[in-house]
């Protein structure tokens, strides 16, 4: 078996063209998932009736579903309902016009949210109860306690774990070809369909995934220096 380095390079460039899509599919679900996840974590932390039970089930269910299934089910639900909903609201949007990347982002957000909410819930629980009492004792309102005392301490605790989630999301995004989104993997495979040199294509894409994840790790390590300081602050 001969290995065609020239073609690997070609596939590499072809895949690189779709890097923005892959990054988008990693970052946007992380951002959306963090916002929703923090909301869920707060609802569960404060044990808000009904909602906290509802979200407990949401988290339990989505933790157990493979991301492929979330993608496929989202696609089916969207393809079935977008036109109907658009009709009833007399919007002109059609499912066929909808950028498939939004479906992928929706599905990956669902996938990330349960894990992210658990990360934030853990971080919230690790804030010493006494500090919260102290905050109330100096006359802060509920919102002020949240904004001034809890959130500023939750973020540094959660950040290193968010990096892990981002890496899982980048890797999970390689499945989006199932809902006909072209990401770096699919981009390289399209190139390989011409001459059946799949091995070269796969290896080219692997290199990109590796580089992206290494870059994220490097950011984490850089942050770690800062986090160590603030963690010492947390648990001195």
């Amino acid at each position, binding site marked *: 078996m001969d290995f065609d380095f020239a073609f690997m390079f070609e596939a590499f460039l072809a895949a690189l063209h779709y890097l923005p899509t892959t990054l988008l599919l990693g970052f946007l679900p992380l951002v959306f998932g963090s916002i929703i996840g923090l909301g869920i974590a707060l609802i569960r932390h404060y044990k808000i009736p009904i909602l906290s039970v509802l979200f407990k089930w949401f988290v339990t269910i989505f933790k157990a579903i493979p991301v492929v299934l979330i993608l496929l089910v989202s696609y089916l639900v969207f393809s079935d309902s977008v036109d109907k909903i658009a009709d009833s609201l007399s919007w002109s949007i059609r499912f066929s016009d909808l950028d498939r990347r939004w479906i992928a982002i929706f599905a990956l957000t669902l996938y990330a949210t349960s894990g992210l909410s658990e990360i934030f819930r853990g971080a919230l629980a690790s804030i010493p109860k006494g500090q919260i009492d102290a905050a109330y004792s*100096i*006359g802060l309102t509920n919102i002020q306690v949240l904004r001034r005392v809890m959130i500023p301490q939750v973020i540094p605790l959660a950040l290193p774990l968010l990096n892990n989630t981002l890496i899982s999301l980048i890797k999970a995004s390689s499945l989006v070809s199932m809902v006909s989104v072209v990401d770096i993997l699919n981009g390289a495979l399209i190139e390989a369909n011409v001459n059946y040199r799949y091995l070269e294509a796969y290896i080219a894409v692997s290199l990109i995934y590796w580089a992206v994840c290494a870059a994220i790790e490097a950011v984490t390590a850089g942050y770690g220096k800062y986090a160590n300081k603030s963690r010492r602050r947390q648990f001195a």
Partner: protein
Amino acid sequence: MIEIKNISKSFGKNNILKGIDLSINKGEVVVILGPSGSGKSTFLRCLNFLERADAGEISIDQTKVEFNKAKSKEILALRRKTAMVFQQYDLFHHKSAIENIVEGLIIARKIPKHKAYEIGMDLLDKVGLKEKRDAYPHQLSGGQQQRIGIARALALTPEVILFDEPTSALDPELVGETLDVIKKVAQTGVTMIIVTHEMSFAYEIADRVIFMEDGVVVEEGTPKEVFEQTREERTKQFLARFAYAR
């Protein structure tokens, strides 16, 4: 003048406070003694609604609040007339010493920043930690953290400061500096309720001593009356264990 009437609190079937009355004059220092589990800390925590009492009422400065009915606005108003010093100091870990002190002033009291920092620096000076202005809690000893905790409470110029075993978590060597600061504060005429196990400190600082057990006040009087002319058998037993401290 602070008037507390018939405060009761249960946790499940556990009756922690069984209707306690207490009135405190302005500038008075009241020390509460008693074995652990007697309800001292719960009593303090009910006064500023860190625990919600089942019954009773408190009035500070003519503002009357019923414990079981109070709305969040009333609770907030009451908390802004009180301040608390905690056993575990409970400073905000992500804020420096000065930021800890001014937090309540700026955020709760809406005092302009520069004014708040002026007050904060004065208080740092008062507790002898001027040079620790920008230190974070993890860079401070327990005694220093507790002195910042006291400054944080003082900053709010409350009607009353509640001390919940302020030296119980400290190394014996660091207890002295903290008690000295509390004594200094007491001399400035701040009203205080102090829960402590430091008997000689209680004797020295208190205008009135209360001995509590099982959610009721067993004995009450001046330090001289309670420590030297003890009436109740139970109080005698309790104080006997601390005899060496006097």
